[in-house]
Structures are given as structure tokens and as C-alpha cells.
């Protein structure tokens, strides 16, 4: 058992960097954020260390409550569309043969790994006044003047859906891949309609992937202020945009911290719900 003793000693050395790093740069900073949210802004610069609930009261003002509502609305809308588009995509992909699976995976990963900004940039070309979409629509005589789609709500929704769709596809795919399609076949042989077979077998068995995809798209969609910024101009203000503004122009760290704290609580509630529904601790398809 000599090696076991050695193992125990070297174990600490292995764990030490992870412990130190996680406590110092993840746990403490997040605790600091919660502390900060109960402090107030100093007169000129920085933070005044006196306890207050003012920041949270301010969030309840109609202006900021409206921002939260607007963010949630956009997140729900985008996530809904992503489910509708991404679920069948991931599901069908899992049914393909090995060669096509690999090809499709490559096609999904190329834009996914390139750059979120660069991918949004392409949509500017599409949506811009007298841009590609306007030209096509006017060419087909569907409209007779530019639609002014850039800097509009639909453009932001498209940007959100486009940026986050791969998360859903990968999550559903990884879950559907494990699905034993012979079960579906058996139920079909026994006389179930294809809809019934899907509803009673495929959907429940791919539910962890679907739910994980929802979490993975809903959570980031509340924070991706740059999509609203680039494709929505400054017309659409989301929680993310307010946090950004409070930190930069407003120089109000405590208020930004309170907004972040609320956003973080919403996020952890969602993850809780996911764990409760699926009984699984890890998000499917995250890696």
C-alpha cells in the first residue's frame, strides 16, 4: 500500500492549483458582486462601503423592470424559434449515416468556431437598406421600397437565433444519437402512427437534450448585448445593455452588480429547474 500513501500526498499537489484559482478568481469575485450590489456609488469615483437596498429598489422602477421584461420577451421568442428550427435539425442529423453525421458536424462547427461577430456582420449585408434582401424582394416585386430591416426588432431576433442555434442542434443531436431507433421501429411495427411513435418514444427520450438546449440558448440570450447593439441600433435595450452602460458611461458599479445579481439568480433558477426536470446534473451537449 506504499503507492496509496504516495497517491494521497501527490493528490494535494494536483488539486491545489484548481482550488486556489477557483476560490480566488471565481468564488470570491462572485461573492464580491453580491456584496457590491448592497453598496452605493461614491460621489466621484468608486464605491462607498455603506449598506443600502437602493439598487434593488431602483430595479423595480418601471424603466428597469421594463428592460427585464423586454429581455425575457426576446429570450423567450428567440428560444422558441430556436427550438422549432433546431430540434428537428438535431434529431434528423442523428438519424443520418456516420459519413453524413461527420460532414454535417463540420458544417455546423465551421461558422460556430469562426467568430460570433463576423457571422453577425453577414446579416448586416443582408438586412441593410438597399442591401441583398431588399434587392431580392424588390426584384421579385414583393415590395417596392427598401424595408429598413437593419436596426429593427426582427433583425435582432434573427441575429439571436442565428448565433445560438448551434447550441440547440448540438444538444439535441447528442441526446438523439443515444436514442435506439429500433424502439421507434418496433412501435411502428406494432401499429403506432409515426406521430404517436415520436410523441411516446422519441420525444421523451430526447427531452434531456431539448431542455439542455433551451437552457444553453435562453441564458446567453439575456446577456448578448452586442447583438442588440449591432443589429438593433440603440432602439432595443436589454438587461445586458443596461449593465454595460452602467459600468461604462454611468460608472455605477453597485447598480450594475444588482442587475447582474438578479440576472444570475434567474439563471440559476433555470438550471435548477432543468436539473429537477431531467434528474441530471450536467447539461447535455455543452461540450
Amino acid at each position, binding site marked *: 500500500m506504499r503507492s496509496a500513501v504516495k*497517491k494521497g500526498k501527490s493528490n494535494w499537489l494536483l488539486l491545489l492549483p*484548481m482550488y486556489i484559482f477557483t476560490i480566488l*478568481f471565481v468564488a470570491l469575485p462572485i461573492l464580491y458582486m453580491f456584496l457590491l450590489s448592497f453598496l452605493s456609488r461614491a460621489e466621484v469615483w468608486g464605491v462607498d462601503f455603506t449598506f443600502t437596498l437602493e439598487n434593488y429598489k431602483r430595479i423595480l422602477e418601471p424603466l428597469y423592470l421594463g428592460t427585464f421584461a423586454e429581455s425575457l420577451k426576446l429570450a423567450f421568442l428567440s428560444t422558441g424559434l430556436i427550438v422549432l428550427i433546431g430540434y428537428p435539425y438535431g434529431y434528423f442529423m442523428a438519424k443520418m449515416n456516420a459519413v453524413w453525421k461527420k460532414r454535417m458536424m463540420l458544417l455546423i462547427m465551421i461558422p460556430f*468556431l*469562426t*467568430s460570433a461577430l463576423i457571422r453577425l456582420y453577414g446579416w448586416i449585408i443582408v438586412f441593410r437598406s438597399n*442591401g441583398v434582401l431588399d434587392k431580392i424582394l424588390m426584384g421579385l416585386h414583393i415590395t417596392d421600397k427598401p424595408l429598413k430591416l437593419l436596426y429593427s426588432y426582427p433583425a435582432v431576433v434573427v441575429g439571436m437565433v*442565428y448565433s445560438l442555434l448551434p447550441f440547440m442542434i448540438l444538444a439535441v443531436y447528442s441526446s438523439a444519437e443515444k436514442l435506439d431507433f429500433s424502439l421507434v421501429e418496433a412501435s411502428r411495427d406494432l401499429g403506432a402512427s409515426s406521430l404517436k411513435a415520436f410523441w411516446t418514444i422519441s420525444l421523451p427520450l430526447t427531452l434531456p437534450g431539448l431542455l439542455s438546449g433551451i437552457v444553453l440558448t435562453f441564458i446567453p440570450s439575456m446577456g448578448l448585448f452586442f447583438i442588440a447593439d449591432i443589429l438593433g441600433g440603440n432602439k432595443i435595450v436589454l438587461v445586458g445593455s443596461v449593465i454595460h452602460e452602467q*459600468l461604462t458611461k454611468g460608472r455605477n*458599479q453597485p447598480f450594475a452588480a444588482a442587475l447582474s445579481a438578479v440576472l444570475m439568480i434567474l439563471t440559476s433558477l433555470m438550471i435548477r429547474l432543468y436539473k429537477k426536470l431531467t434528474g441530471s446534473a450536467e447539461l447535455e451537449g455543452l461540450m
Partner: protein
Amino acid sequence: MKMKKWPFVYVGIITVITYIPILLTVIYSFNASKLSSVWEGFSLKWYAELFRDRDMREALVNSLILAVLSCILAVFIGTAGALGMHRKKNPVNDLIAGVSMIPIMIPEIILGMVFLSVFSFMGLPFGMITLVIAHTTFCVPYIFSMVKARLVGMDKSLEEAALDLGASPVRVFWDVTLPQIIPAILSGVMLAFAMSFDDVVISIFVTGPTVNTLPVKIYTKMKTGVTPEINALATLMLLTTVVLLVGAAVVGRSGKKQKA
């Protein structure tokens, strides 16, 4: 099972739509006109302009340094952590592992906000150091969880056999454990690198006045107006991703053949 045709058609159509904006970016990078609404013929002038842009080159170098440093740190922290936690399970380990995953679970903006306030509280000068710390926090989870998943599926008896045959623990690590977890580390690094190289939200908050990363630079350019230079840059970045991914696929395939 016989497959119907329409699922393929559906997947095909969605895939084509997702590639339209990308292809447009590539096409317009060769457009002689500054306006994307008119086509004035083929030209490479935006590429020439891109290569002359010193700020852009500096930003690219910064982004590469940042991603490499964060990945190196994350490989050490994440791999060691996964190995240590795999050997001995206890609730404190689980807690630390859970906390270490937070950076990729919460919206990026929260992480950016947190680091901005903490670094200004600590009085750290904003720049490469703050960027590396912030990026390492979200690189660690990718490597940690990849290695952890690999260790779970690994055959322990190989390590035990090597130990029984008298190999030192260090030797066992180098000759038995490491070769088995290298693929997991590499796929973790690939994801972590891509995330770091692409990050806008967190970088905006923790970057200093003198250090620009490529995504931050692109973001400010995109906000101030459209420059065809970005088209050229996008095309080059896309090309790099394609080469890397196809390269990885080819290497993976030949690796498998060797094993078989």
C-alpha cells in the same frame, strides 16, 4: 431503417440559409466598391488595406497571445484538477468542481461585470494580465470536464498493472495516463481556444486602454460603420477555421487507422 427524403431536405435548407450571410461576406470581400449595395468588379484592395492596418495586426497578435496563455494555464489547472478529483472523491471537491463551472453557465456579461469590479477593487492595471485571468476562468471548465469525462471511461487496471510492475507514479503518469487523456485535453483546448479567441463581452470589460483584442477591435469598427476591410478579415478567419477543422479531421482519421 429506410429514411424518408424530407428530413434531408429540411436539414439541407437550414444549412444553406445559415451559410448565406457567410458566403455574402466572402463575396463582398472581393468587391471593388466601398458600398456593399453595388458590385464594381473583382478587387483585392480590401485585403491590401487589411494587411496595412497596424492596429488590426496588433489586435490579432494580442488575441493569439491571450488565447495561448489562457489555454496553457487552463490545461495545467484543469487537467491536474480532474486527475486529483478522479482519484479521491469528496464533497469539497464536488463543490469546487461545481463552482469552477460557473463561468460557462452564466451569461457572459455577468462575468465581465464581476471582473471589472473586482479588478478595479484590487487595483490591478487593466491589460493583458486581467485579460488572461478572466479568460482562464472560462477556459478551465472546458478542459476540466473533457478530461474528467475521459478519466471516467478509462480502464484503471492499466495504471494499476504498471504500478504493480514497479513503475514509479510519475512514470505511470507519463507512459500510461497521459497518452490516454491527450485527446481529451486537445479537444478541450480546441473549444477553449475558440471561445477565448472569439470573446467580445468579457474582453470589453477587462481590457485596458492600450490593449485591444481582435474581437473588441472588430466590434468597435462594426459600431462606427461598415468597412469592407472586415469582409476581408472575416474571409481569412473563416479560411483559418476551415483549414484547422479539416486538418483535425484528417489527423483524427489517420490516427484511427494507425490504431486499427
